[in-house]
């Protein structure tokens, strides 16, 4: 397995003068085989950073290793399970497209806990949680060394969220995947991550082992923690 590193990465949208800087000289390392949880509010630049890692957003400056390109060793799972799968394609075809016929589609479906017989159904017949499993299976079919997961449980009901999180953690540990796990939900990030990075206004303001959530150093991290609802 390999690590994912961002070096001085800047992403700017629009022109130099009137544009906005979404990601501002970010240095971030996701060590091999570990899960880094990236938290921050919407607009903090965390999704832009994720899309940059897989080449969906061009870098203004800086470097990412491994180099972002289509079909590369980094695969991504998206937030909205309803938009992430082509409604016209069977889920088997969606997975096979990424696997490029090298392997058995059934194997990947079983990996995410779906019966292989379901390969012939279209996404319309699946629930949100099942779609998100298929999206994960598709990412795995690309034989990735690194997975970027962008808010993958935010659109799911709490009852389904738990099952998807369990599966993500189990797969990550079994396959030793390197993972950048993005969420605005601190409790979720705390549950799956080894390392936590806090992002605000395009910058990483705090970075450290997950235990930092017990004793945050940065004021903004404390503010985020205070806002977590407690029953």
């Amino acid at each position, binding site marked *: 397995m390999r690590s994912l590193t961002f070096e001085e990465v800047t992403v700017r949208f629009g022109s130099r003068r009137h544009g906005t800087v979404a990601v501002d000289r970010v240095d971030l390392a996701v060590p091999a085989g570990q899960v880094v949880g990236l938290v921050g509010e919407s607009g903090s630049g965390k999704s832009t950073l994720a899309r940059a890692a897989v080449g969906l957003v061009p870098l203004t400056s800086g470097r990412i290793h491994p180099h972002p390109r289509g*079909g590369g060793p980094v695969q991504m799972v998206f937030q909205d399970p309803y938009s992430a799968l082509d409604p016209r394609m069977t889920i088997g075809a969606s997975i096979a497209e990424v696997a490029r016929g090298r392997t058995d589609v059934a194997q990947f479906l079983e990996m995410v806990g779906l019966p292989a017989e379901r390969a012939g159904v279209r996404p319309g017949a699946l629930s949100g949680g099942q779609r998100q499993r298929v999206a994960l299976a598709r990412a795995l079919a690309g034989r990735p060394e690194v997975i970027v997961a962008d808010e993958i449980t935010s659109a799911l009901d709490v009852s389904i969220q*738990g*099952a998807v999180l*369990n599966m993500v953690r189990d797969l990550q540990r079994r396959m030793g995947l390197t993972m950048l796990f993005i969420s605005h939900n601190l409790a979720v990030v*705390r549950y799956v991550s080894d390392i936590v990075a806090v992002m605000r206004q395009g910058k990483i303001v705090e970075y450290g082992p997950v235990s930092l959530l017990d004793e945050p150093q940065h004021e903004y991290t404390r503010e985020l*923690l205070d806002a977590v*609802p407690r*029953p």
Partner: protein
Amino acid sequence: MAYLKRPLGISAAVLLVLVLGLALVAPLLWQERADAVHPNEILLGPSSAHPVGTDLLGRDILARVLVATRLSVGLALLATAIGVGVGLLLGTAPTLLGRRVGRWITAVINIAVAFPTLLLALFFAVIFGVGAKGAVLAIGFATAPAFARLTQTLAATISGRDFIAAARVAGVGRMRILLRHVLPNIAEPLVVSATMAAGSALLAFASLSFLGLGVQAPGYDWGRLLGEGLAQIYIHPAGALAAGVAVIVAAMAFNLTGEAVARGLVMINPDKPRSALVGKAEPLPGGGLLHVENLRVSYGDVTPVRGVSLTVGAGEAVGIVGESGSGKSLTALAIAQLIESPGRVDADRIEFLGEDLRHGDHRKLLGTSLAMVFQDPMTSLNPTHKVGRQLAEVAREHQGATRRAAWRRAVDRLAAVRIPDAERRARQLPHEFSGGMRQRAMIGMGVMASPRLIIADEPTTALDVTVQRRVLELLADVRAAEGAALLFISHDVTVVGQVCDRVLVMYAGRVVEDLPTASLAGGALHPYTQALVSAVPSMTTDRDRPLAVIPGRPPDPHALPAGCAYAPRCPLATERCLDEDPTLTVHDDGRRVACWHAEAHLEGAAS
């Protein structure tokens, strides 16, 4: 293909098959008859030998009109094919060639679309020369820009979806993305619009031929026949009209088919309404501001809300939690009288401030005493009006305030919901507000009058934690300041726990438990409530153990089980649970639970 089963669809299809069939066989059957010149039968009126008479050379007009079908329809289809082909190439080019080149092509399309079609056609006719070939190219190229624009817009919508991004990440090439993902997803509207374009091309072609710019003698299509007949219209009207009728029928065949298919595409299952499932009435503790008894909401033969009873006391904060599809939002909408057709609301009682909401018009009462806050404030604010003006409207509409007084109240309310610099902000449009600020403006709108009840439907689901906390605090403040009650709908049981005094847990269209929020952690009696609470990870969840999950899925509203709806997922389920549906039973402390096991549990505790 369901749209072909409706009357419009059937007649359109029959007409289209007839026209196309005629185009194929008519020249084989009647060519000779159409070309036979009879110098002694010139300009005859309708007779048994010539149903619509003869022309200047004594040829049978009906035969000529029928034979002309092939040329007229064929040329129109050819022109459409050119238009669709060029349009598709131009429209998909931005997807294929990337951002920079795409921008130029888009600009070209935008300019081309701005030219009037007929002008463009005349212009091309001059370039390509007068004749059928010129006309086909002219109409084809004139159709192309509109089709290119449509293709491009549709493709752009699809290209923004995550599955396209996912394919790109996987290294799928642009051409493959276009062919496998984009085109199949936009094919339906394109086919519809191509069918309609064929109808228009037919008309355009007839016009050009009629003007002498299309088919030239000795060839003839409907446009030319119409032109020839027109000269004799006073002596011999039937001869001129025959070609006109043919044009109309054929154009209608194409347009109606397109329309029928289009309707089929947007059709939302308009199932015939069947009598709603009769839910069991639930006994109800007395007293309160809002009384709802045995509320049912049905859509056709599906009843997503099946007999909900609840009360909200004055100033009380009540939460409704449940998974998506549990009926929680529909319950709230039904109370606010916001269920639209084909939805149907039935209830034994919906009483708010002593008024029966089931009958009559309650706009005034609801406008002043009930405030509604939705999940997405952007869709509930008018994007073209200043925020302050939208708030002021409430005061003018319901309280008859003057323009100035209403505006002052609006600014005051915006300040009350802690919008900084309210005077300036009131003059801004909704898109200039952040998500959290818009939600606060919505709450501000709710408190323009003095509401007795605020219904908030997932008001913080789209917001970040820090913004969520501020909105929740604001709701609590407003409630304290106005003495209003709150009905708070959410899928997140922890959020509800923060703002509410009491929680109703809904499952499959029923209330399964009604308990004080203090009892949520540890004191819930229904196994579903317990599972819902433990499924949410908290900041103290054990990281080394798997999260608690609720196995299975909520039941299909079309096929609800006979017994308890939760039984198939419940670890405690017994034979009785599968056979008998437990009723919501009130206990001594006012709590309500619908579970056979909770009952045993309580009885055991009592004896």
